[in-house]
């Protein structure tokens, strides 16, 4: 018998309808983008070629979708089988998040009708970090689809296919660990070539890939805790605090390593004074650091780790910390020189918000119709 079950609740609820309206607004502006050009809906310009469509949808969005990655490492590489119940919802959220990243990349492509050039070997530039990110994200979306297949096959009782899939699943899972390690680190390497436009507090050159992959990991674990807590509140299910608090321990380790490297680099390269420069960058750095330190402090206490509410707050802080790290580096303190400024246009924001709304709608639909969430008794049995 499966450890998972569909929620089997009503699909069309008030929140669902609200999300639908938001999605429609986003789609309206998206259509405008394709008919009249990106300039009609975005504030992109010659100095800021990347706005929130790249920085949120791809750079931050895929990191928020690292739950499947973080759990795959925990369950299958470090053999912590007790976290298995969290895998399916995390995989679904990852699949949707990465799909958003893929769609974000496509709608942001100025010459989208030639997108296939990135898959043509004779067009590929192997020096390009962007090539690695593009190919790797595309491959990982497919890997996530395969990883999620057992859920679909279970639903339609395709036992034979399920058995066949299970035989090769180990290889797919291994790929599902390798690929995010590759492209999440490359998202950091991408900052290297942007050189002086990246603020010195975020321009760590050779350390970029390491910091990027560490933040992807912390955000992956944080989103699992966040989704786990939220779905127990939202769907009024028994919370899986015992499982989630265990993840809190991983997060403590990761944040500690991250902070040591981050501040070590700043100290060694004599950039410490920039933290107190009193400008926008120093303010953003302090906020970002505080958001990293808060979950560290909370999760260091075993009692706080067992407290569902504190755990949720720690996860939220962690998500904001990782997101802000990337927003700061890529956009907020990104400075192409005098004469250029950027703040997203309302239609531009609505496109991103609309796409996220669609993502949530699909998530709600799937957990209600497919065996994604763990059976409740499973959670309570293990709690003892």
């Amino acid at each position, binding site marked *: 018998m499966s450890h998972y079950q569909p929620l089997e609740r009503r699909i069309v609820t008030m929140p669902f309808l609200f999300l639908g309206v938001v999605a429609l607004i986003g789609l309206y502006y998206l259509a405008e983008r394709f008919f*009249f050009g990106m300039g009609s809906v975005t504030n992109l310009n010659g100095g800021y*070629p990347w706005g929130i469509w790249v920085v949120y949808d791809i750079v931050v969005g895929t990191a928020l979708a690292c739950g499947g990655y973080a759990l795959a490492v925990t369950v299958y590489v470090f053999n912590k*089988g007790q976290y298995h119940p969290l895998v399916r919802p995390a995989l679904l959220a990852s699949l949707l998040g990465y799909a958003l990243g893929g769609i974000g990349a496509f709608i942001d492509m*100025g010459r989208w009708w030639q997108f296939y*050039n990135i898959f043509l070997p004779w067009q*590929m530039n192997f020096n390009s970090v962007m090539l690695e990110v593009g190919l790797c994200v595309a491959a990982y979306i497919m890997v996530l689809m395969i990883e999620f297949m057992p859920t679909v096959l279970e639903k339609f009782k395709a036992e034979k296919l399920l058995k066949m899939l299970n035989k090769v699943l180990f290889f797919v899972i291994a790929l599902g660990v*390798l690929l995010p390690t590759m492209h999440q680190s490359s998202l950091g390497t*991408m900052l290297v070539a942007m050189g002086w436009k990246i603020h010195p507090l975020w321009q760590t050159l050779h350390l970029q890939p390491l910091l990027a992959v560490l933040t992807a990991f912390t955000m992956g674990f944080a989103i699992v805790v966040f989704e786990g807590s939220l779905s127990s509140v939202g769907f009024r299910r028994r919370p899986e605090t015992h499982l989630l608090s265990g993840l809190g321990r991983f997060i403590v380790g990761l944040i500690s390593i991250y902070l040591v490297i981050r501040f070590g680099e700043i100290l060694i390269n004599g950039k410490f004074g920039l933290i107190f420069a009193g400008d926008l960058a120093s303010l953003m750095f302090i906020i970002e650091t505080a958001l990293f330190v808060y979950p560290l402090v909370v999760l260091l206490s075993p009692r706080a780790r067992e407290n569902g509410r504190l755990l949720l707050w720690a996860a939220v802080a962690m998500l904001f910390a990782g997101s802000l790290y990337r927003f700061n580096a890529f956009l907020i303190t990104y400075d192409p*020189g005098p004469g250029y400024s950027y703040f997203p246009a309302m239609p531009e924001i609505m496109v991103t918000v609309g796409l996220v709304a669609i993502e949530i709608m699909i998530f709600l639909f799937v957990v209600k119709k497919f065996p994604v969430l763990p059976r409740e008794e499973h959670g309570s049995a293990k709690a003892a």
Partner: protein
Amino acid sequence: MNRRDFLKASLGGAAAAATSTSAVARQNLEPAPEAVGMLFDTTLCVGCKACVTACKAVNDMPPTMMGDDVQWDSARDLSHETLNVIKVYTNGNPVTKDAETDGFAFEKRSCMHCVDPGCVSVCPVTALIRDPRTGVVSYDVDACIGCRTCMTGCPYNVPQFDYDNPFGALHKCELCNQKGVERIDKGMMTGCAEACPTGATLFGSREALLEEAKRRLALKPGDIYNYPMGDVRNPSRTHEAEVPDYQQHVWGEKEAGGTNVMHISSIPFEKLGMPPLPERSYVSISETIQHTLYSYLALPAVVLGGLSYVVKRNMDKEGDDE
């Protein structure tokens, strides 16, 4: 990237993976063997913008208008319809030309045709190409997917995307050697250098231009120098002028690996809006990281093998427990 480079990089990758130091870092690229470029001398520029008009004529681009001012092209900065622009520097009460304080000066902005171009390195689909012979950085519109990574990777914000066109493209100076123009291949000089009435924009080989630049910096301020116009190797005309007090700095000799379009000036370059660039190109660092990790996908393949083994073992164990 040719096979030999690929092999070298891959050996470097293997070595680095083994010793966890990138001993074989990718160095800055060297200038192309017959590199051509331009030398812009701000002290000679009178701000007439004949070069801006000539550039638009060559590229068939419309003048950029500001408000009701329809007398001349008033482009303020580079854009999808302005590949070359003259900007003005002013300080205090701007009365003296080329004076840093209480002065003014004109500065050209166009593609610098980097020796180690960021745009070329970061483009995923090889839509930006450095000509192996001339070093000219050109653009292939049929390859471009419009991701605009080149714009983030260019230290000078040169490539410009046409956001207002649903089927827009990238636009940048291709040193008048783009398809259908090919002035360099035909033995001609760039449109802007040809149009310049004072020799402020001078065309030529990178080598000859660098020599000319250094000759000027060595002159004594106040002396008379015979400034060449057009092509430095074969000037169309020359004109005599008083030597200004040059900054002892040829912009583009070394910055981020150097450029084929170089500038000299009597005002420090950071005041003219030039970016803070180290001598090592940023893309030589990102390529070192990239090839250390990914050459021949050797390292990922090894990791994948290890992961597959561990995952399979752990999954089998899980199965036994249940």
